[in-house]
């Protein structure tokens, strides 16, 4: 890699990686929140004797 432009190439790849890794982290946090929310709703419904979807 020619030295003159190496910083630009590294910067571009770092930004692209940050974007893709950002999606992965956000999706993991979002999934955890959704799973916790569903577990809480199912627990409340069970305690109240409300039938679920199944």
């Amino acid at each position, binding site marked *: 890699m*020619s030295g003159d*432009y190496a910083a630009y*190439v590294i910067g571009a790849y770092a930004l692209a990686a940050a974007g893709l890794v950002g999606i992965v982290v956000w999706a993991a946090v979002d999934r955890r929140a959704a799973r916790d929310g569903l577990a809480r709703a199912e627990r409340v419904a069970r305690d109240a004797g409300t039938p679920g979807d199944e």
Partner: protein
Amino acid sequence: MASMSHSTAQKPSIVNPARFAALADRAVPWLAGASVLAFAVGLYYALWASPEDYQQGSTVRIMYVHVPAAWMALFTYMVMSSAAIGTLVFKHPLADVAAKAAAPLGAVFTLVALATGSIWGKPMWGAWWVWDARLTSMLILFFMYLGLIALWRAVDEPARAARVTAIAILVGVINIPIIKFSVDWWNTLHQGASVMRMDGPTIHSSMLVPLFIMAGAYMLFFATMHLVVMRSELMRRRARGLRLRLARGTA
């Protein structure tokens, strides 16, 4: 949306959200593995095995992350447009889930395309940003993604949110051909199409192969994350349905 899930409970195959969720859970690890593998091979070619350009030098390597991100930004919007038709015409229960899950992914792809393009532009054009038709229409696409995400959040009732956003998505689809053909319709600093041309690509195969491998990796990444986010959205909607049922039962 609770009524939507009731009406589809008996539908066969992956139209049934529960069956789709089970299939997604099985597919995600395989897609994720294939995506990591494709990125590993693509990055090897992009950073080491492919040649430098005789004019651009090593900045040509930015193309391997910039161009697939731009393609995915457009592809994601087309996925959302198909899903919007699925919502409005076929009332498919997963259509709105698919569109809603794709929007943040599309926004990030667009941002990556804009940012990496800007980094390429500084050494090649001498400017981080120019208001040419391609860049401006891509920036508008980014704001459209943000607007659609905000619209989903602004409308409380999911079925109504699905209809409103589906209409907004289909109105916004006009921007996709504008982005694609902006370099033909106007004089732009951004170069013209060099891969998707009627007379074939103008890029040498030593650069075209890594570009397609990286595009495949981005596509697999999108498929993986789209399924993961759709799965989360289905769980959220099921939880909402349970809470509504409970509220109705206790009212």
